[in-house]
């Protein structure tokens, strides 16, 4: 273990909202990339296939209507003291992945899943200029 490099972010605990937020940001970034790719495709259509553009052809846009995330986690509860001295229970979770299992010598096969559905949608009703 001593000479093994460990990426601690893979096994350390983090607040639940932080993990959901990080996944959400990744999904938002992916949607932005899809939108930008559609705009670029439409621009290249206008430039390279003018005859198609002239008859009103428009490229499809792609949208992720929903993303279902199923996380297998190890829950950790921790009592924290607030600034006012009150006790509050903090909820943390560790991703239950191969690294975590190796680090703590578990023999478990819980795997998380991320299910993304991407569907084509009609292009929005505005013109993209060259």
């Amino acid at each position: 273990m001593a000479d093994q490099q460990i990426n601690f972010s893979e096994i350390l605990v983090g607040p639940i909202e932080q993990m959901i937020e990080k996944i959400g940001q990744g999904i938002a970034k992916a949607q932005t990339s899809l939108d930008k790719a559609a705009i670029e495709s439409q621009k290249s259509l206008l430039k390279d296939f003018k005859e198609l553009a002239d008859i009103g052809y428009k490229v499809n846009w792609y949208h992720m209507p929903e993303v279902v995330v199923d996380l297998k986690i190890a829950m950790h509860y921790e009592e924290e003291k607030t600034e006012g001295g009150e006790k509050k229970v903090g909820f943390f979770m560790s991703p239950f992945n191969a690294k975590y299992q190796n680090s703590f010598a578990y023999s478990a096969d819980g795997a998380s899943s991320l299910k993304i559905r991407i569907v084509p949608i009609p292009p929005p009703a505005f013109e993209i200029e060259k």
Partner: protein
Amino acid sequence: MSLMTKIKEFFKGKNESNKQSDLKKELEKMREQVEDLKNQVEDLDNRNQDLTSKMEATTKLRPMVKIEDLTTHFKEVITKLNRQPPTDGENYVILEQLEAEIKGGLDVKDGIQLSQVLPHELTPQNISSIRFTLRPTSVIKIVKE
């Protein structure tokens, strides 16, 4: 005995006494080193005992949570994430549904509490899971320059 022999014997005795005092010094140094090593071993042994007792305490410690605290926390997470939806600066993502399956032991000493499954007790049957649905909302901005 000739004078020469007497002188030789005198120096021979002198050399031997020098050697003896050198050996005594060497022995003293080695004793000090042994004492240092003994102290180091004692320190390390104390640290080892301290760490072992800390590890035992951690293993025995079983954090618990009240069911109402757990549900309130999830409600707060949903409210917080929908008040400030995750964004990459252009698109937002709405948390549409969250389903949590938290596994643990039940403790009834102080009301009903859920006790945490300790790391060494985790098996595929008792890991918790959180399932949530995210819905990206494309925000197309048309800016006239």
